[in-house]
């Protein structure tokens, strides 16, 4: 808890001296911070500007109003990408949180070889998404992967062809993405589980609560700030997903697994429509903001509440 009154009444001069003494530290932080902010903001502004110009092969000045936006929003590619994002985003986030939480709880049982298991579950995170996508595209390809293996083992009516099924292909991306990143959720949850005060758990045990009840009523409620963090991190991954999809399905079969980032790349670099690509990128930014702004607001409210508590 911070005593606000004492800060306000502190003498001014020592504050300046303190700030001067800490100047090198501020410089160390502010210069790179300014540079990266400038870099980020200027390129974002530039992209926003391009999205209102008739640019095609190279950036040109000019003003076309919202024409690029309406063209992108009306295109089948974008509509499919947006629907896919809703499905992929919600399924991926939900399932990776659940998988991560279950893994963390299982690992939390003080089992033997925990370090080894933790490394195994975390390992996929160290692998590039392109590698994940390529490996899963082999595994899921019916002609050479899991389906063929099961057929060769003798179960010939077995069918697992989601990769080439237009309606199910998006789920292959969900599977690969969960494999890749549930370890990350697990690590965060595990840290949360371990930070629960042992005294509280003991108190619950003394009161006669069983392990399931302790988890449900005592431990898990303390995890929800971590859950929110995991959800936000995974969501921003889902919105900007590119390399995994490109390696796994490349938007196919047909254009069934398009995602916004693929549409941006396709418009900018394959169709040479810089203006429309920029418009699609700005739309992606807006979707991201729709996730991040409520999160920032929530954090702000949390902090205010902590201060006034």
């Amino acid at each position, binding site marked *: 808890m911070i005593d606000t009154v004492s800060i306000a009444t502190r003498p001014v001069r020592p504050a300046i001296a303190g700030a001067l003494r800490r100047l090198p530290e501020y410089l160390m932080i502010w210069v790179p911070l300014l540079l990266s902010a400038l870099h980020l903001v200027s390129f974002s502004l530039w992209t926003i500007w391009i999205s209102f110009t008739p640019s095609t*092969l*190279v950036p040109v000045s000019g003003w076309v109003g919202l024409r690029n936006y309406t063209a992108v929003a009306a*295109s089948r590619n974008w509509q499919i990408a947006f629907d896919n994002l809703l499905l992929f985003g919600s399924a991926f986030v939900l399932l990776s949180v659940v998988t991560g939480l279950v893994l963390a709880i299982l690992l939390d049982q003080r089992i033997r070889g925990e370090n080894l298991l933790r490394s195994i579950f975390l390992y996929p995170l160290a692998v590039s998404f392109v590698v994940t996508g390529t490996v899963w595209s082999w595994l899921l390809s019916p*002609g050479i992967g899991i389906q063929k293996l099961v057929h060769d083992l003798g179960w010939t009516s077995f069918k697992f062809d989601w990769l080439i099924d237009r309606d199910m292909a998006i789920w292959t991306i969900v599977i690969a993405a969960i494999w890749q990143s549930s370890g990350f959720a697990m690590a965060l949850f595990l840290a949360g589980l371990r930070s629960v005060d042992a005294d509280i758990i003991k108190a619950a045990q003394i009161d006669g609560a069983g392990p399931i009840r302790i988890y449900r009523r005592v431990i898990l409620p303390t995890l929800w700030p971590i859950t929110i963090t995991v959800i936000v991190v995974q969501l921003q991954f889902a919105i900007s997903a590119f390399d995994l999809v490109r390696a796994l*399905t490349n938007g196919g*079969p*047909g254009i069934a697994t398009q995602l916004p980032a693929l549409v941006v790349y396709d418009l900018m670099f*394959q169709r040479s429509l810089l203006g429309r690509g920029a418009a699609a990128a700005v739309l992606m930014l807006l979707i991201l903001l729709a996730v991040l702004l409520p999160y920032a607001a929530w954090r702000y409210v949390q902090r205010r509440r902590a201060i006034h508590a």
Partner: protein
Amino acid sequence: MPITTTRRRLLAGSAAALALPAFARAQGAVKPRLTAISQWSAGSDGAAITALGKKFEEKGGVWQHSPVPGFTTEMMNKLRAQIMAGDPPACSQLKGPEIAAWSKIAPTVNLDDLVAAVGYEKVVAPDLARLHKPGGKWIALPLQIYSTNMLFLSKRAMDKAKAGKIPVTWTDFNDLAEKMKAGGVTYPIANGGTRPDDGQKFEAALAGISPASYRAAIMNLDEKALKGPEVGAAFAQVRKIADWMDPNVGAQHFSTNLKRFVDGDMGMMIMGGWAQGVLRNAGFKFDDFIIAPGPSDNTKPVFLLNADAFIFWQRKEPDLQAGQTLMAQLVMDPAIQTMYSQITGSIPVRTDVDLSGEGWSDGQRRTAAALKDAIASNQAVLSLAHNMAQENGMTAAMIDVITEYVKNKTIKPEQAVTRLAEAVEGAR
């Protein structure tokens, strides 16, 4: 032996070295130099352009080729960056309608005099020539030609079907596919699952049904032709082809299935002439397959043109200008075109090159003959799937519809016709 030198000598040497280019220029004898970028870095493509570079050096030039491996679009990103920086290469790979589009963003070299000097225009297919002279001036030169609708027949699959006749029309083709299916060929059509792969099936179907309709609908984007019955018939033919394909290919490259094709597990392949080179590189023999022109309902060969080309960007440096002249002369030279096509498996751009000699395959001879016949009957048209008929944006919009149609069997041909027309309207 240690090399010793005095400061004075070093200075004199440097001065001489600095003065040398100016001196050479004054003498009117600049050493031709060429900066070039292309995506050709490996395999037969890399070997061919390296051989071209050797020829350039033999003529006294300095060859500075920077390959950008990967997709054509990656080469284009490099080109875009160099043009925006005001430092374009003296010449770069570019093809089809992109030549006209890109020529608007940076000045190009007028090659009219060089082309006229060797009477080149008379020996190039008219539609192809038109692509390389947007605004009426030659600014780019085609290098080699492929047909995207060659028909590859597996000898073993033909044996299984007890068929000996090469199909000429689409009806023949469909009959043969049925026979193969009945004879135990699992998938009568060998295929990959990439976008150009799907696009090629459609363009081969439409051009084979009616080259005139293909020209009007795909090359000229005529609205009536786009909604015409021929386009519907082409989609119906593509559905038949799709039903005979292996659905388990995902987004694989066509070359993945070549072994099954040669083994007779798959029967026919509609693919560009480059597949010959791929088959040969994979160790298969000419006896394993037959190459013929793609099906054509009026029985005269239809040729879907795909041509690689170089565009020449304006530079002020005299040595680069001399290099551009030399490069243009080389690219138009029948001997150079022969050398290049023999390495890559394509056919020469010039229609007057004799392919009867050593170093050419029967497939190449048949392709070249088909091109000659197709030009004579006005049936040489530009490939959509390989970015020859339309600019990239329009091509991508059309291929979206086609690839979705191939993969989604619930879409009816009539629906596909409407969607294609809508996609064209949206991309205009």
